Each structure stands twice: as structure tokens, then as C-alpha cells.
């Protein structure tokens, strides 16, 4: 008899979870659902980009007549590159869109906390940014709907009783979460690929390699962002007796986190600020913006916090789960 270890058991449960999801086509359903949503959203965005490309190709509609034209003077040195980008047919449309004087750039710089962050983001392919930002919105809901059933399903069918005699409850839950995490990593990667494929199909002069770089830059950050939501789904799932109640609890938890985050933002500079900050630190939304930064140190800290938050949710769930009747 081998001496099984918690890690080995976790790995075995995760592998079984993945295999069963693939066999039952649950994985394909999750993937299909996510890809369908991503495809529609990306298609709409790419259509918008294509229209912008058209607009950018006509400088008059984007920026109005150049000031020097109105004044009848020669263009000054700093203005020359932007104008050249706009009027040269072979120039990348993205450069024209993000030109130093473009209103889009100004808008983004105003939205971002620092000009450096705005510049970093504006240097990335828009399709990669779109992939990341839309995934930040979609992933929590997808996880709550799909991952919340994973442990609850075993309770509902009582299949957990076959496992509980062979491994610990902690290993069982961690294996389930790991299996779901691997599935989400696969799904988010595929959706990035889907976005790039649509962009390559619909956009002129699409720089595939730049978009791939951008997607691969954001993908690990997205995976880290999934962890607390997987933790929340696991917390709800391990303490529910049915799939339906697990979904209700996890979606309720998601809404509660979002409300907590909004509360913290609304009550800044008020006597409730400390409470709001405390609550906010316990939600993944607090760390969301840090994932956009170019600094690996900052991103690493945010990712670590997100993983820690996921671990915290799971640990809270396990406190009750270890004592509950199966």
C-alpha cells in the first residue's frame, strides 16, 4: 500500500473531475457557452474597430481639419507623425487611432489613474485589452454558474460517500477546485484565441503576433482573477446539499461582493471609510485594476492577493464542511 499524500489525492480528484467533465461534455458546454458569448462580444467590438479604422482613414471626421491647415502654416514637428499616420494608407490603423493627439488617447489617459498606465494600455492591441476587460466582467458569472455545482452535485447524488472513505474532505474539495481552475484556464485561453481569430478575419492589417503577445500577457492575470471566484463557488458548493442551492448561494455571494465593493467606493472620505476599505480588501474587485499595470511586481502582488483571497474563501468553507454531514 502506498502512502498517499494530500497533494497526490488532490491531483487525482482534479484529474477525475476533468475527465468526467470531458466525458459528460460538461466541459464542452462551459467552453461553448463562454466562446459563444466571447465571439458575439468580440464580433461587435471588432465591427466597432473596423468602423473606427474607416473613420481614422478620413482625418476630417476624426479630428477635424489640422490647425495648421486652418492657419495656412507648415505643420510643426510634434504634429507631423500623427498626421502622417492618418493620411498614409499603409500605416497601421491602430497607431492612427492612438496617435498622440487623438481624442481616444486623451479619453483613456483621463480614465486611468496614471498617464503611464494609459500609455502602457494604449500600446497594447485593442483586441487584447478587450479580451481582458470583457473576461473580467464575464468570468465571475460563468464560474458561479458552472463551478458552484461541482461539490454540491456529489452531495446531491451522495457519490461523495464513495470518495469520503478514501480521501480527506480537504483533498476532495481542493481537487474539485483545481479541476475547475484548469477548466477555466483552458476556457479563458480558448476565448482569447477566438477573439484573435475574429479580429484577424474582420480587421485590416491585423497584427496577429502583437495580439497574441497581448493575450498571453493578460491570460495568466485572468487565471489569477478566477481563483477567488472559484473559491467563492467552492464555499457555496461544499456547504449546499443541491446544485440549485449552490448556484443561488454563489450568485448571491457574487452580488454581495459587488455591493460591498460599491459600498466601499461610495463611502470613501466618510466615517465608514475604514469599514468600506476592510470589506473592499475581501473582494476580488479591489485588486482588479492592479492586474492592468505593466509592473510585474504590482501584478504579482495583486495575483498573490487574489490567490490568497480564493484560499481564504475555501478555508472558510472548509471550516463548516469538515463538520457537516455528508
Amino acid at each position: 500500500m502506498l502512502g498517499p499524500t494530500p497533494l497526490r489525492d488532490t491531483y487525482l480528484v482534479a484529474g477525475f473531475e476533468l475527465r468526467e467533465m470531458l466525458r459528460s461534455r460538461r466541459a464542452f458546454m462551459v467552453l461553448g457557452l463562454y466562446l459563444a458569448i466571447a465571439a458575439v462580444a468580440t464580433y461587435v467590438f471588432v465591427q466597432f474597430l473596423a468602423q473606427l479604422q474607416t473613420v481614422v482613414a478620413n482625418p476630417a471626421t476624426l479630428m477635424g481639419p489640422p490647425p495648421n491647415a486652418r492657419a495656412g502654416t507648415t505643420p510643426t514637428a510634434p504634429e507631423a507623425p500623427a498626421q502622417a499616420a492618418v493620411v498614409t494608407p499603409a500605416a497601421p490603423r491602430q497607431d492612427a487611432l492612438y496617435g498622440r493627439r487623438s481624442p481616444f488617447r486623451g479619453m483613456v489617459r483621463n480614465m486611468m489613474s496614471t498617464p503611464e498606465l494609459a500609455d502602457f494600455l494604449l500600446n497594447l492591441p485593442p483586441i487584447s485589452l478587450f479580451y481582458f476587460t470583457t473576461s473580467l466582467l464575464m468570468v465571475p458569472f460563468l464560474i458561479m454558474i458552472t463551478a458552484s455545482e461541482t461539490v454540491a452535485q456529489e452531495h446531491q447524488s451522495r457519490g461523495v460517500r464513495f470518495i469520503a472513505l478514501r480521501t480527506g474532505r480537504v483533498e476532495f474539495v481542493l481537487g474539485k477546485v483545481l479541476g475547475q481552475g484548469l477548466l477555466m484556464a483552458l476556457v479563458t485561453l480558448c476565448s482569447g484565441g477566438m477573439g484573435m481569430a475574429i479580429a484577424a478575419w474582420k480587421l485590416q492589417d491585423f497584427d496577429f503576433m502583437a495580439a497574441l503577445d497581448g493575450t498571453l500577457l493578460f491570460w495568466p492575470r485572468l487565471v489569477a482573477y478566477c481563483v477567488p471566484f472559484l473559491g467563492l463557488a467552492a464555499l457555496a458548493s461544499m456547504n449546499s446539499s443541491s446544485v440549485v442551492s449552490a448556484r443561488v448561494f454563489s450568485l448571491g455571494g457574487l452580488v454581495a461582493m459587488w455591493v460591498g465593493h460599491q459600498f466601499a467606493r461610495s463611502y470613501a472620505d466618510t466615517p465608514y471609510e475604514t469599514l468600506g476599505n476592510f470589506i473592499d480588501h475581501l473582494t476580488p474587485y479591489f485588486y482588479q485594476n492592479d492586474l492592468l499595470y505593466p509592473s510585474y511586481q504590482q501584478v504579482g502582488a495583486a495575483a498573490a492577493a487574489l490567490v490568497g483571497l480564493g484560499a481564504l474563501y475555501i478555508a472558510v468553507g472548509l471550516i463548516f464542511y469538515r463538520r457537516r454531514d455528508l
Partner: protein
Amino acid sequence: MNTNPAFESALSLGGVSKRYGATRALDGIDLEVPRGSIFGLVGPNGAGKTTTFAITCGFLRADLGSVRLLGEGPFDPKRHRGRITALPQDAALGRDLTLADLLTYLGQLQGLRRRDIKSEVERILNLVDLTDRADHRTRTLSHGMLRRLGIGQAFLGQPELVLLDEPTNGLDPRQASNIRDFIAAQRGTRTIVISSHNLHELESMCDHVALLDRGKVVVAGPISQVTGRNEEVSIILAAGPAPLAEVRTALPGDTIEWEEGQRILKIRFAHSADRQPEDVIGVALQTLLHNGARISTVSRGQSLERTYLELPGAAARQLPPIPPEAARSAGKNG
């Protein structure tokens, strides 16, 4: 609960109680299951059999009382993994993996060596007659096949204690007979606790039994003792003479009862090394035949079914108390 370390007990429950809201499922159960025995757990629906199993396996937590498994405290997956297995009631095995994959997974979790797993899975599939279904998904199996698979997984590896909740429920007679034969063949090699409503089945397989009612152990002990097999002989006489006085004279000190309607002669006697049931039967038959009686049937004790049917009411209390040695080996009234 027996605390004598010399006493080999596979499962020991001491004063275990469990409530579900206002319902008391177990009410201070004491039970000792000797190692190597095949132990039957009998009782009507709601008696607490499944709850007893679930607490033993660690699925449920007892409100009160203590559980010792294989002499090592309550169930702990680190300590008991692979040593205790179970066929839980109404639990579904994974639906989308093949039988071979599922058993491999369970075997791996149980800690079986990788090189042993393939042959072990083959052995189990052969045992439950599902070899030809090895590559089918579990959801394609019939109820009876799933039951057999459930029994099979409980015998993966070399478990020391196996708990089977209604193992032959839903099996066809041939499969049920095969499973009974297999379980009976395990006597002495491992401890098996079986819950069942099929009392004939339990009587044929088990050497110890506990009868539960309303969350309490009503009677427990070696099956021969519970059914009075070593302390009671019943002789059914055909129409004709019934020489009761002669029998009473031939068996002084024994209790002789006569049921006129069914023409049953019951002889209760004290069992000892010098006085076996066969000796009593010999004397009784000799006396009856010598006095012209015609013998229809001779049996020892009463069936488990009859014992069970008589239990919850007033008749249950007429059962002889369990002698100290039986109480030591098989629990006592809760």
C-alpha cells in the same frame, strides 16, 4: 463498549445517539462487532441501520457516544483509508466514466499500487460479473449492475472492515446467490457488516446479528444465540399420539411447551459442553417414537425472521437475556 485491549473488535459503538431535528434516529446504541465475523444489522425502516452505517463511516457525526474502528478511534481517512470500505445506500457512482476507469480511480485514491490496480480492477469486475462491461459508462448500467459495481468497489484491495447497506437489493436471484456465496467465503478473512431486510439471507450468511428498533439495539449476539439455535428444539408432530408426559420424564429440568393447534413441541434446555442440542434431539425423538408419535419436522431454535417479527412487541421481551459472554462479544441492549 469493551475496553479490554485483548478483545478483538472491528467496530465498537458506545452510547451513540443521533438526532435529525426532532427525530431521534439513534438512541444510545452500544454495539461490538467481533473481528472476522459477518455481522447482520436487522430492523424495520427507520430503525437506524443506515444512520449507524453513516456514523461508522464518518459521513455523519454522532451527537453523543463514541466510535472505535479497528481499535483506533472514529473514522479518519488518513488512518483507515483502504482498510474500511462501504456500499452506501442510495449513493450514485460517477456516471460518465467507464467502469474500469472508475474502479481505477477509486483504487488509486485508496492507495493501491499502480502496478496492482489493473489486475485488481479485473478481479473486481470478474467478481461482480461485469467484465464484459468494463469499457461501458456507468450510466449505461441497469440498477442491478450498478448495485453489483457498488459491491465490487467495496472489495477493492484488502479492506479489513466492509459495510454493506442492502447489498443484494435489486439483484436477480442468481446474482444475489453469487454475492451471498462470496460474502460467506470472506468469513474469517475480514469483518463484514451487512444491513438487510432479507432475513433468510442474513441467517444464511451471518454468524452474529443485532436487531435494531427505534434507534436502539433490541437484541444482539451470535446468531445461534439470538435465534435460540443452541437452546431450543421444536418438533412438529403429525396427527396421532402426543406423549408429553413421557418426554417431560425423559428430559427432566428442561422446559417443555406444547402448542396444540400447530402440534409443536418446544423444548428449551441449558446448553453446555456436555449437553449439545443433538443430545436433546436424540432423547426426545427416541421417547416420542417409542410412544407411537409420528414426527413431521424437527428444527433447532426459531428462524431469524420469526425472532425479528416477535421482537418489537411484548414477545420481544420474552427472549432469554444474552449471556455475559455473548454480550461481551456482540453488544447489549441499548
